């Protein structure tokens, strides 16, 4: 496993001010994620999982602490540059897919390339079609999201996340809105991406899926309460099993 740190959070706090008072969503998070890791963030509702993912993606700002992703302190970037940097270096996948409803699947996939001016204009549709093909959706390239199933939409969202070939994928409950069979197929895609050298941090409620990553972080009340490295051995019948848990 590679040891180059891709994500570094140091002393990250996030406090939300609401009408009901201040709410500390994150209470001094320290976290390092290395290149090639497949990390699951698990915990109950309100534990701070989404807030933590939002810190890493730059979608939200910490109240205190530093966030460094791919050697960049992302919150030192101006908003416009951060958006472009995110578009080039991260692929973000949402629970509710968040595809633009009036664009076709292929147009949704091309969107990050267009905004970040990646690949020349002739290459973009070719690359987008290639990504959709990898997702098994080549025949649905010209359909709008409302005509696709949930699983198909999430595949399109994954293809969009891969549009600019980012090294890091962040997924917030990517299977939360899918049936188990579809969720399984999505997870297998993630496993393929890991095999291809991507780093994935995924928020999930699904314990079965969480057990198949190689590291899981359990959060509660804004803190990481458990950080486990999980090594998987291949049994003679080809099934994976948790061979060892390394508690941290």
């Amino acid at each position, binding site marked *: 496993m590679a040891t180059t740190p891709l994500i570094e959070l140091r002393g990250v706090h996030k406090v939300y001010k609401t009408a009901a008072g201040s709410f500390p969503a994150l209470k001094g998070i320290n976290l390092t994620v290395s290149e090639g890791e497949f990390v699951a963030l698990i915990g109950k509702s309100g534990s701070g999982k989404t807030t933590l993912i*939002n810190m890493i993606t730059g979608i939200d700002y910490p109240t205190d602490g530093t966030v460094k992703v791919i050697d960049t302190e992302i919150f030192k970037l101006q*908003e*416009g540059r951060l958006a*472009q940097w995110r578009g080039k270096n991260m692929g973000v996948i*949402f629970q509710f897919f968040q595809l633009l409803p009036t*664009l076709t699947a292929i147009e*949704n996939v091309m969107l990050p390339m*267009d905004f970040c001016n990646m690949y020349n204009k002739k290459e973009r549709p070719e690359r987008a079609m290639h990504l959709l093909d990898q997702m098994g959706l080549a025949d649905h390239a010209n359909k709008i999201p409302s005509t696709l199933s949930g699983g198909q939409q999430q595949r399109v969202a994954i293809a969009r996340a891969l549009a600019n070939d980012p090294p890091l994928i962040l997924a917030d409950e990517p299977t939360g809105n899918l049936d188990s069979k579809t969720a399984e197929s999505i997870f297998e895609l993630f496993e393929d991406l890991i095999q291809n050298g991507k780093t994935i941090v995924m928020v999930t409620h699904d314990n079965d899926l969480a057990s198949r990553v190689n590291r899981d972080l359990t959060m509660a009340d804004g803190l990481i309460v458990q950080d486990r490295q999980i090594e998987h051995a291949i049994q003679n019948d080809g099934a994976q099993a948790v061979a060892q848990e390394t508690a941290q």
Partner: protein
Amino acid sequence: MSPRWRKIWSDLTVNKTRTVLVVLSIVVGIFAVGSIAGTAAIIDRESKALWMSIDPADGSLVTTPFEAALADDITAMSNVGTIQLRRTLNTRAELADGTEKDLRIFAVPDYEAMQLNRIESESGDWPPPEDAILIERNTLSLLDISEGDTLTVRLPDGERRQLPVAGVTYDLSQPAGSVLDIAYGYVSPATIASLNGGESWNTILFTVDDDALAASGLDRESFSAQVANDIRDRVQAQDVIVVAPPFISVPGEPPGYVFIVALLVVLGVVGSLTFILSGFLIVNIISALLAQQTRQIGVMKAVGARTSQVVGMYLGMAAIFGVFALLIALPLSFLGARGLAGFIGDLNNYKITDFSAPWWIFALQIFIGVIIPVLAALVPVISGTRITVRAALDSRGIDASNTSFFDRLLARFQMFPRPVLLSFRNTFRQKGRLALTLATLTLAGAIFATVFTVRNSLFATLDDALAYENYSVAIDLAEAYDRDALIDAAESLESVSAVEAWTEVTERIRLDDQSDEDVNILGLPTDTQMLIPLMQSGVWLDESDVENGIVINTNIADLGVTTGDTLTVIVRGEPTEWQVIGVARAIFSLENVAWTRYDTLAETIGETGLARLLRVTTSPNDEATQNAVVGTLSDSFASAGFAIEGTQTFAALEVSFNTRFNVLVLSLLALAFLLAIVGGLGIAGTTSINVIERMREIGVMRSVGAANYQVLGIFIVEAVFVGFIGWLLGSLLALPISRALSDGVGIAFSNAPLTYSFDVGGALLWLALALGLAFLFSFLPARRASRLTLREVLSYEG
């Protein structure tokens, strides 16, 4: 097409209702401004070119008859350039239906060698042959006559002459006869001599000498007035009397042009307000669009879009709306300008042949159509796209509401059903959106009510103007005749119920700064029943026993003369003094007019016992009786040897006023119609978008048991409530705006504010429109939403 522009294009085409609403609102704005600006440009160019093509005079004087030799005397004056003589004879034309029309007949010494105010031939014979008449093209319809027909003319002495209509002319130098209800005819010098019994002239047209003008240091108009006075002094020294104030042209402008400018300014103001209103609408709809697409904005930023890129997309959408609107509005504006310019041209006898608008009109419309929507969208787009990614993605379609003062207030009104309270609360939930919607509705309602009020005020002022003239028939005599004899001759006629004989003089008043202004002074009985003046200050003649008391109109008062002042009037070259006892309002008149006792004026001008004007009331006082009395009176006077210079019935005066202001009234109504469209679009747009962006809320309400009618009721009550508040605020705003515009219209047309009369009917009409449209455009989308399945509604993505 790149995906971001593909998204914008899809947004435009997927939500056709919204696109149509925005485009139409921009179309109305472009049309209002473009057609009025285009009309102004066409009229300005064509009318001035036409005017200059006739070699216009700088001024003219109408006098008692004089011999042609006097022209040499005038031409010799060093400050006079060119002169042109005319003979004007006021007669009556007998129409085929038995009625009569005023017919002013002209003759010039040589039609082929006219120096000033040249008359052109339209068709038929040219120059006018002997014992025939040519009719001015604008007045053919007044006489209901065509080339080749025979016209019966009643001369001042009562004699009737048959004159064949040998052709048609175009005379731009005369005010449009169709507006003044006067026909114009043109005859040869010999013919007019046979009509009025002598070879003489009574009108002097002149231009000023350019060198003298340059040396004077004055502008052309002021110098022309000075030269007119010099000519008057010269001719009066030879016992030729100037019978009316000299007419001084505004350099480069045909007669009546100032009224057209005033008309177009008024229309331009209202048109611009309409355009501003459409700008509000754009802001409103773009704001609603951005609110609907909050989550999409967050997604775009999450996948790499900079705020500037997102701003560019939505401003691009605004520009595309503008381009769509231009495609519709440009040809419509062209047609509108052509139509309005043609209408104004026909009314004012401008023979417009080139209706092309200058290039800058198109540039203006392109600027309005594209740049203004982009500018209008700028604030909502920038504020809507600055939302953070987290806030945008957290948007769930059901907004959190803080408990506000209004919420707590509403909580006390438990007598209303819960859904109704929810409607009221929803109305104030999005204060920014409400403010924009109310601003649009308020402005639309205010302008709508203002337009109707200006129209109402115009009619009220016309009524005041006509109320001044409390007579049925006015007779102007060719010279002063025995007053008692005139009265006896008139009173002996059937249908005549009352007669007054007045005198008049046209002279000059000398102001404190020693400058002179022309004035028309009428001498009438102090207890006159034929004139009901609207007094601004002081008293009328019957309330004063000052022998030389004089009542002035507000045009003279504007020169600095007030009640109590001593007014110096130069009568027959000698200064006379008059005591100003009151000021009466001038309505739709730019002339300086004053009134004094008959006895005093008659004595001053040496015409004691004589009269020049007759005012008659008829019974019944209808148009037919008035016309009949004119006919019998003319015969009777002819028998008695009284020559009539001109006649006017009250009915004709009414027609003249109404015709003059028809263009303004019709144009204002057309603009009110446009306003209704824009205001209606505003209501339609905001209410339908309001429903659409709360689709999920509809779903949630239905999922917890709300019946369809209850859901519908919430939105309808909300929309109608907002419509009502907008109407109320608009009506209140209409009070000062309508007052200001009424005053402005009055001052533009007649140097005095209109008689203000707020049109409650117009305000109520807007209320009905606003509430009706609010109901319709909330009912339709809400009903559509209520028919979707719960799943469809809850997953609606706008």
